[in-house]
């Protein structure tokens, strides 16, 4: 049956190597990774600019720069942008680019599904941000507690953009996660057992499972919010027997696993970089992997630590307090293993290493403040103050962003064939490291001094003026650092030093192929005998697990005979249809059928398009 409609697919998907069309129809995991990465960095700058405006307003007491209404939109969209449009897609960018390279595969399991994930992400992000133009962005905070989100207290469309935007983004992430699970479980090079997988791939697998299990919970919450707002179904209306707390339970049952979704990719990245720049294997590989698994499991049992003040009763909060504190154990295991990876090593303090060390040192601070508000009595004094804002930025900025930056500097040469400028990189690092501490460090203090979060103004005489001014100066330092980062990327793309295949003397498979990698990644699928196959190949005398004496080197295939999946425009059509459907719901739920029809058409076109190697085994 494939051949009957094969002509359609073939006509539309004539392979071309460059140009906009080739990017729109690409199904190459490396290119999709680039698309994710570039979009995520742009959204990061957008979310950062929103934060910058917040900081300018808060720089002085009784400031008049930004009105209360706009301020609420800014902090809501700042968080949504950073969480859903910057860090998660940056993680996806790394997953896309690296997983097949690290496991010795030629692509992901479902290349077109992969493209669909990206386009859904992009359109969902556009939908969410289009609210700024159509009458106001969501303004109830990123966790949007009911019943402030009802049609009574949030009339207008802003909360519908929130709901539908996140629904589209959720489908995108779910599709991506399913794809990565299958890719990692099913496409490893011969010999790469689970316990020989690079730690980054392990963390990718864990994050993907977290997404698979956490996203449907958020989806249910969002669906209920949607039905409540559109059809008066009283899920969160106390006067009809509904319960506003249901939203909080659902949101945080998703939301807490979500914060580990945000941090584990960075932990994976750091677990690759520290060994490389110490010239030692990761200390306690097994412990680091299982600590990751444990964090993921426990992440589902702690959600109520965001709800210590809603009145759950002493027994419940005592239990959730204990489960929350327990997470410090596996996290500590990781921290100590990283430190002892450095121990006795030969540390080369290049930019990726600096960012990784920045990650470890700052994440510890964020983790410890986390343990402090895991104690419910303390949390009564800390919740919804800047102490929490400090915590979340130390783990998210000091943690996730620092780790992802490390990854960008580390794998940029593999992606582009050129090194990032080391001089600018070091300046970028120090500006970020110092700027971050100046911005978020004082937030601890101002939080202890009682400054609530989400306030657009505060009075003279509150005792917070100086600290806030300092924080705003920190934001300026961060902005300068990020401008330097942008300059560095552009300069390195044009005139960076040529990298070679293995500029860092690294340890995993992706460094064994050329930079940038060929479309098919590996001409010979490698055979794996150890955790660090490439390092062991370079230093057979030091290898822990040696290949058997009779091992035969894999034979390289003729590149011309390697079939890669055909480009396809169906993913973007399906993504467009689905996002249009979501957008039209806001206009009129019945109009949404137009989007639905486009989606259906896309799905059928997709099914009958010959997909290339994916279909023949």
């Amino acid at each position, binding site marked *: *049956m494939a051949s*009957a409609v094969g002509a359609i697919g073939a006509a539309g998907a004539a392979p071309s190597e460059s140009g906009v069309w080739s990017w729109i129809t690409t199904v190459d995991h490396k290119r999709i990774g680039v698309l994710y990465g570039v979009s995520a960095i742009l959204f990061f700058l957008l979310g950062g600019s929103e934060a910058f405006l917040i900081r300018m307003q808060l720089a002085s007491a009784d400031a008049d720069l930004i009105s209360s209404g706009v301020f609420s939109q800014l902090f809501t969209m700042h968080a949504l942008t950073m969480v859903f449009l910057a860090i998660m897609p940056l993680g996806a960018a790394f997953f896309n680019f690296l997983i097949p390279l690290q496991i010795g*595969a*030629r*692509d992901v*399991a*479902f290349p077109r599904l992969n493209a669909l994930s990206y386009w859904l992400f992009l359109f969902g992000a556009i939908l969410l941000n289009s609210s700024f133009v159509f009458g106001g962005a969501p303004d109830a905070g990123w966790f949007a507690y009911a019943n402030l989100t009802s049609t009574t207290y949030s009339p207008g469309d802003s909360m519908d953009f929130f709901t539908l935007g996140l629904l589209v983004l959720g489908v995108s992430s*779910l599709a991506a996660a*399913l*794809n990565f*699970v*299958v890719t990692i*479980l*099913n*496409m*490893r*090079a*011969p*010999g*790469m*057992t689970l316990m020989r997988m690079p730690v980054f791939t392990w963390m990718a697998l864990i994050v993907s499972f977290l997404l*698979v*299990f*956490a*996203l*449907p*919970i958020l*989806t*249910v*919450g969002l*669906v*209920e919010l949607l*039905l*409540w707002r559109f*059809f*008066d*179904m*009283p*899920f969160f209306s106390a*006067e*009809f*027997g*509904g*319960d506003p707390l*249901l939203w909080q339970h*659902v949101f945080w049952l998703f939301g807490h696993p979500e914060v580990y979704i945000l941090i584990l990719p960075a932990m994976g990245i750091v677990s690759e970089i520290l060994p490389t720049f110490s010239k030692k294997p990761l200390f306690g590989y097994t412990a680091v992997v299982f600590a990751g698994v444990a964090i993921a499991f426990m992440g589902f049992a702690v959600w109520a630590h965001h709800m210590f003040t809603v009145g759950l009763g002493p027994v419940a909060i005592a239990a959730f307090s204990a489960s929350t504190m327990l997470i410090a154990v596996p996290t500590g295991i990781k921290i100590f293993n990283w430190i002892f990876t450095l121990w006795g090593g030969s540390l080369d303090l290049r930019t990726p290493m600096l960012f990784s060390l920045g990650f470890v040192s700052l994440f510890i601070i964020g983790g410890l403040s986390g343990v402090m508000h895991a104690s419910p009595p303390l949390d009564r004094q800390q919740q919804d103050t800047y102490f929490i804002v400090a915590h979340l930025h130390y783990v998210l900025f000091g943690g996730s962003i620092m780790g992802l930056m490390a990854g960008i500097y580390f794998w940029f040469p593999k992606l582009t064939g050129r090194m990032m400028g080391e001089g600018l990189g070091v300046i970028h690092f120090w500006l970020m490291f110092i700027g971050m501490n100046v911005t978020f460090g004082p937030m601890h203090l101002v939080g202890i001094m009682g400054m609530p979060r989400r306030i657009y103004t505060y009075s003279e005489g509150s005792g917070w003026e100086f600290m806030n001014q300092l924080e705003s100066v920190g934001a300026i330092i961060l902005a300068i650092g990020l401008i330097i980062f942008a300059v560095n990327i552009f300069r390195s793309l044009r005139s960076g030093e040529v990298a070679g295949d293995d500029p860092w003397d690294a340890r995993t498979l992706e460094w064994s192929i050329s930079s940038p990698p060929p479309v098919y990644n590996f001409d010979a*699928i490698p*055979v794996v*005998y150890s955790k660090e196959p490439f390092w062991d190949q370079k230093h057979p005398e030091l290898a822990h697990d040696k290949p*058997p004496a009779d*091992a*035969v080197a*894999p*034979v390289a*295939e003729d590149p011309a005979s390697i*079939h890669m999946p055909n480009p396809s425009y169906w993913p973007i059509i399906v993504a467009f249809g689905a996002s249009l459907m979501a957008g039209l719901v806001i206009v009129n739920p019945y109009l949404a059928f137009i989007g639905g029809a486009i989606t259906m058409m896309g799905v059928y076109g997709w099914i009958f398009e010959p997909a290339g*190697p*994916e279909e023949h*085994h």
Partner: protein
Amino acid sequence: MATHSTTAPHTGPLATTTGLDHRKLLMWTFLASECLFFGSLIATFLLFKDASVSGPIPQEVLNIPVTSTSTFVLLTSSLSMVLALAAIQRGDIVSGRVWILATAVLGATFLGFQVFEFKEFIDEGLKPSTNVFGASFFTLTGFHGAHVAVGVIWLMSLFIFSFKSKDGIPASKSLDVELCGLYWHFVDIVWVVIFTVVYLISSLE
């Protein structure tokens, strides 16, 4: 994907690491995710079934005999799904088509029952917006119904496209049917849970 794994130290001649087809593993993982989706909806229902401030309450509207019948229909469709897959795997074109069609028809019958049930409830004064029981009931069973509907469309697509070639769906493509079957059985099992939790337990109290 050609992995040329003859030199592999421990994997056999299989094309995938686990030996499971990519699409099958995808389906399994997707269904795991669906468990959490329905789990959350069921949890909402349990939270709300007795929380309504005004009626109708579950005992007043639920019609166990009718729903038992539709449940029986749906369970039967799981049997016909098994028969369809078996037929296709042994290359029996005609029975393959018949059982696929039968499964689709049974699924559609179930949907018919559901439409009837929804209409009854609305006539008895239970709309989705009437109270939290209504809201959580219609959301849960509605989403289940939507899943059945997707399954019916999928089955009908398989049925129609089996006529594209006179060989029907060849045994080598039986995976196409098997995937649909996995999905179909899952939707059935979810219904068994819903039937127990929503209908039997709620009407007993």
